[in-house]
């Protein structure tokens, strides 16, 4: 069940038949007794970038794999550009561009050979294939390295080509599964800029990440997943408004941090506290006002505070509020 967030329409009412490029209804996938994705519903319109945000194991990749036809759903419905994805008719896959989390490229082939191969799988041939290949090579800024083997590329170049391979057939829906994982800041910026451009060109984008700041930057709407459930969705503003009165307080401390966390949870006005290594994340109503009480609790349990930061409400705070855990736990 999806938690109601402000005025954001939820579940089945969140879909817009007829205009949605992607519509998922009650998507469910089980692995044995474990339910990896449980009744997930959302939709994405043309030109919209939808971020699926959640920690590792939340069910983001499983959801994406069902949408891309890599896993069969046990229940639910997926429609891409009005065509139901049923596992038998693969033609609808031509509307989807899939960027897997891994660098799904052939290192012993050149950039051009990789693109040509994936282009042919989408039935591009002859001059059209060459044009699209050149176009994508230019887009990912690899024209001058087109005939070099991918194994000689840097990580960032490979990431860019990994995305480019999903664009050859000009899909209506671009699905990106954590495309910036392990990428340096400069390449990450370039990738995010490209994705913003794709969205602006009218492409519907489904983007998974556990980097809140990425979702903050490029997504029009965000769905927050935890333990297989879509627990909230809406625009950034709508989601943050839900925890508008709450600040996120980030502390680093040495000593018995678990006792410190428990002591913090006893402070009136702190609704969640979670440990992440040396850091303690608190969700507090008016964090600045509560700081003296927090410091007093630290003193009481013999913990030394090394740093304190009060962060304005953001998606991380939303996640903390909804799940009681930090996004990167």
């Amino acid at each position, binding site marked *: 069940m999806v938690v109601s967030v402000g005025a954001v329409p939820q579940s089945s009412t969140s879909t817009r038949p007829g205009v949605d490029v992607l519509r998922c209804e009650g998507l469910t996938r089980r692995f044995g007794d474990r339910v990896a994705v449980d009744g997930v519903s959302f939709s994405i319109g043309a030109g919209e970038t939808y971020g699926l945000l959640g920690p590792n194991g939340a069910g983001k990749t499983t959801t994406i794999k069902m949408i891309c*036809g890599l*896993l069969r759903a046990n229940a639910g419905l997926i429609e891409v550009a009005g065509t139901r994805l049923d596992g038998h008719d*693969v033609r609808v896959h031509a509307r989807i561009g899939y960027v897997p989390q891994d*660098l799904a490229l052939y290192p*012993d*082939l050149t950039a051009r050979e990789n693109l040509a*191969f994936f282009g*042919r799988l989408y039935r591009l041939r002859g001059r059209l294939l060459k044009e699209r290949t050149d176009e994508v090579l230019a887009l990912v800024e690899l024209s001058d390295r087109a005939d070099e083997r991918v194994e000689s590329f840097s990580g960032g170049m490979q990431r860019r080509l990994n995305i480019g391979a999903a664009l050859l057939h000009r899909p209506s829906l671009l699905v990106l599964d954590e495309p910036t994982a392990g990428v340096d800041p400069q390449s990450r910026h370039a990738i995010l800029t490209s994705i913003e451009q794709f969205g602006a060109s009218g492409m519907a984008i489904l983007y998974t990440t556990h980097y809140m700041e990425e979702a903050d930057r490029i997504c029009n709407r965000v769905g927050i997943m935890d333990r297989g459930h879509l627990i909230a969705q809406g625009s950034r503003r709508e989601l943050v408004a839900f925890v508008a009165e709450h600040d996120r307080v980030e502390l680093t401390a040495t000593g018995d941090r678990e006792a410190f966390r428990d002591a913090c949870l006893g402070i009136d006005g702190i609704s969640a506290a979670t440990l992440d290594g040396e850091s303690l994340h608190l969700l507090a109503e008016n964090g600045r006002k509560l700081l003296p009480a927090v410091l007093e609790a630290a003193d009481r349990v013999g913990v030394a505070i090394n740093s304190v930061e009060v962060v304005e409400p953001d998606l991380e705070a939303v996640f903390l509020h909804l799940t009681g855990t930090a996004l990167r736990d």
Partner: protein
Amino acid sequence: MSLAWTIARKDLRQRLRDRSAIVLGFVAPLVIAGLMSFAFQGTEHFHFNLLVVDQDHGPVGAALMRGLSAAPIRDVLTVRSSTTDAAAAAVHARHAGAALVIPPNFSREAENGDSVSLRVLTSVDQELDGQVAQSIASSFAAQINADRLSVETALHSGAPAATTGTLVAKAEQLRLPEQVATESIGKHPLTAISYYAPGMAIFFVLFAVGFGSRSFFTERREGTLDRMTAAPISPIAILAGKALSVFVFATLSLATMAVVSSAVFGASWGPTPEAALICIAMALSVVSLTALVITLAHTERQAESMASIFVFGLALLGGNFVFVSAAPPVMRRLALLTPNGWALRGFTDLATSSGAGAAIEPIVAILGITLVLGAVAASLARRTVVQ
């Protein structure tokens, strides 16, 4: 089909850029077959030196020397006279394969009906030469016994004792009427290279099972299989593409081996159309074996181990390393449970020109095994691509 070919073409391009695949598919079988051919060179034309020590100097010794220099035995032997000590030393030093010693008074004692024996000097290192020499001695002794029996029979039937000399002379002209004649079904003898060239080609082509299955699991690990599955292409077409690449690689490897071993080493693979059909059937069986490994294994490492077991197990059972004809009957029967065993049988039958239909039975057998393996793989393959 064009999408399957797209995948196959990509796989082949990768394969041809992989040096280990080139070595295993093309270079190694040629080198190993060449070495084996060199090692077994001449074994198909048996010949050895036989020393004869004639201490008798009588008519029997002369008769033996005459027999040894007559056709067809002279093609197998080079006969030289020697002394006992020199013959023993020569056999020991492997300068001669064996020696026959005709003891003193052999002719006289044989004519008198006394018990006499020929001695054969052999060496454990030249067992076959010794066996042939022993066989010659036994055959010669049987002829002498037959002569003696003829003379005794004539004398007991009333021939005058004075004619014994004449009877002996006439008996010596007689030969045992019953002879064993060995005739091969094939028109040509099987040379070592004609056995080992296809033997090694088939052995190394079985390594394509490992390449094919590993390639599948590598694609799964690296996400490229997911990327293919996300494209508008059916899982069947993906598997067909993978199978096609294995088939083309295996066929090319066998064909290259056939052409080069024939041109360079003089191997005979039989008539081209029949040999080509056996190659194709064998390549199909490699495809079904690859499919079986893919469906049985769960990881790249499992696939690699399983493929190695298949390759060496099949090669040992099928007779790729040793002549199946020299193996025990159980092994010969087991060889017929393997596609490579049947393929080898087909190629050897074709090489010896055993008849127009020589390839039919092996091809049918290989295709039968292929179908069985393929059916098992298909029954397990339901969830191989999309889970």
